[in-house]
């Protein structure tokens, strides 16, 4: 049984690690590319959101490499993602791809539904081993996030353009290659070292922008047209409202691990703008703006795929939040078009504005200081 699953940024490192820990053969689809998107939009429903199309493309490409079983997450609404697996499966069947599909989602009636689905993938491995493998997958996601966080810091300050990305790729490869918990620890340490070895100008003044919005678009560089990299090269230190490891802790472990940033804080801050959960990460998106504003960020960029329902609700509320907290906001919506240049121009303009604002604040503070001294 060759198992495959869709791409979402560096998700593959942790899920693949988890499955291989259980001795399951994994066939990964090639990295999401233009071809993936073309296949997905050709066969997918016309105005479904983009992640569905990319998933579909991933599955078609994985099937070409011999994958037989799809492992997918599910959900119970109201976001469309909860029904992705069923729609994708029926499209694949119509196209003649012979896939088994295992959907891991909160059970409808009893917990045995879920456990039997897990059994379909794991076979006769003991539950203890399964739990260990989940822990291993989580540790991998922690390692990935550690090096990614470092890359956000170094990229805007690097002396040689592209050094950070080279180091990051190397570090991710090391983490991906690790086979045991011990090796993983070493790989994480080596990866962090690599990131810290990138030559930087630590005195450079940077702009700080938070990326918020829909999880898939935030995590998948193909879907967000490499926004982190482009911003980094414009001298922007970024932060994302969602990291994979935090998501796992929040949703799979129910926040069991303490001391890790949690999206619950965002939810608390969403009122009075949005007073109810709207599916997906809509509530978190709205609530993250006050949080980032308080942390002194210079701006926020909301990212989501065209027609994403929860984020549209958030989008219509964000201008008010941004005005109330005096933090500039830009909304970027991605769809099948892949013109990176258009996005870069908009990013440049936005960053220019933020720089101007930062400069004015600095001037304002200086003249105030002078006045105080003169009097």
């Amino acid at each position, binding site marked *: 049984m060759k198992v495959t699953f869709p791409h979402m940024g560096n998700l593959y490192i942790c899920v693949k690690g988890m499955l291989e820990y259980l001795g399951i053969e994994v066939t990964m689809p090639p990295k999401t590319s233009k071809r993936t998107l073309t296949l997905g939009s050709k066969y997918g429903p016309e105005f479904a959101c983009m992640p569905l199309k990319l998933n579909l493309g991933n599955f078609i490409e994985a099937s070409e490499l011999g994958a037989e079983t799809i492992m997918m997450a599910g959900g119970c609404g*109201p976001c469309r993602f909860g029904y992705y697996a069923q729609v994708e499966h029926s499209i694949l069947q119509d196209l003649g791809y012979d896939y088994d599909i295992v959907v891991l989602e909160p059970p409808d009636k009893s917990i045995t539904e879920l456990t039997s689905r897990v059994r379909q993938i794991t076979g006769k491995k003991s539950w203890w081993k399964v739990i260990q493998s989940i822990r291993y997958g989580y540790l991998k996601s922690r390692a990935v996030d550690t090096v990614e966080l470092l890359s956000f810091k170094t990229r805007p300050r690097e002396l040689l353009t592209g050094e950070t990305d080279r180091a990051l790729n190397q570090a991710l490869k090391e983490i991906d290659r690790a086979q045991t918990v011990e090796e993983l620890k070493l790989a994480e340490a080596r990866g962090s070292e690599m990131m810290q070895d990138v030559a930087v100008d630590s005195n450079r003044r940077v702009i700080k922008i938070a990326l918020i919005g829909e999880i898939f678009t935030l995590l998948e560089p193909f879907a967000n047209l490499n926004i982190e990299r482009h911003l980094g090269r414009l001298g922007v230190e970024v932060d994302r409202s969602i990291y994979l490891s935090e998501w796992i802790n929040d949703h799979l472990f129910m926040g069991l691990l303490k001391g890790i940033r949690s999206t619950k804080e965002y939810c608390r801050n969403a009122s009075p703008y949005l007073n109810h959960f709207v599916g997906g990460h809509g509530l978190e998106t709205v609530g993250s703006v006050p949080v980032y504003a308080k942390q002194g960020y210079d701006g926020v960029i909301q990212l989501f795929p065209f027609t994403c329902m929860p984020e549209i609700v958030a989008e219509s509320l964000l201008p008010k939040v941004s005005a109330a907290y005096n933090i500039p906001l830009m909304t970027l919506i991605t769809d099948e078009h892949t013109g990176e240049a258009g996005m870069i121009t908009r990013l440049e303009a936005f960053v220019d504005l933020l720089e101007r604002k930062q400069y004015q604040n600095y001037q304002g503070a200086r003249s105030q200081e002078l006045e105080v001294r003169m009097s």
Partner: protein
Amino acid sequence: MTTKVGIPRALLYYYYYPMWKDFFQTLGCEVVVSDKTNKSILSDGSKNCVDEACLPVKLAFGHVINLANKNVDYIFIPRLVSMAKQEYICPKFLGFPDMVKHNVENLPEIIDTTINMRLKTSEISNAYKQVGRKFTGNRFKIWQAYRKGQKSVQRLNELLLSGYMPEEAFAVMYGKEKDKLSSGGDINIAIICHPYIIHDSYISMNLIGRLEKMGANVVTADNLPEELVRQQATKLPKRLFWTLGQRMVGAGYTFVNDNNVDGVINLAAFACGPDSMTSELIDRTTKKTRKAPLLNLTLDEHTGEAGIVTRLEAFIDMVRWKKSKQLPGVALVN
């Protein structure tokens, strides 16, 4: 002076108007409904709503603005989270009251009580109690109003089942003589569409009227009983978590296999999330087995009627042609 409560002629108005009307009237309020959709309502809606929202939500914005201009004291837009156990309406319905409050200026007070029957069906009476308390301290009166509203909804459902369209049913309930249902057409066309689109004759470009003029008898998804729809929807590989989506799929499955139906039209609103999935499911899962041909149409704010009319005419011609061939059970590729 009596308190005026405004109800926008949009979204769930078509499911619950009698309930809301009788509830508020029993409490001694005057109920004001927004005007029928016209060009200015739609353009007000599109102007004040974010560009990416779906057509029905933009339209609802327009109706809220229309009500605000009518000097009502309250506008009733409940936050309908869920109308059935384990189900949702859709994310935009959940966020709608907030979207309105933060995007439209000079609004009267909004009543946005949450109605959430996802976990407990009894929540609905609590929600109405909460609304009622705004107007009276008399618990008995609230209970009476709620009971009366419920009865009206039952009556509405009976009328819908006997073949009336929602607006016709409202007219019958509130005084008008019972119209004779027209059944003089030679073909039967079924429409799968959310009531807030198909029964809004401006936005649906009077689709029902046009079909009737072409000599068709029209039924819509609203004319089917709840149990049938739900039972048909269980054919899906997984229970659908959108209540309105269930009706679309259930009605789709019923209509395409009904020998009395000659053609099915699936009318979706552009950018409607659930529609993008349910349209695909209805089309794909019945492709090989369906008896009636299926036409997929998508509507948005554009107002070019000619395109829609041409497609309708072509479809009707094909349905008639198929019927004249007298080949029951042969599915046409659409």
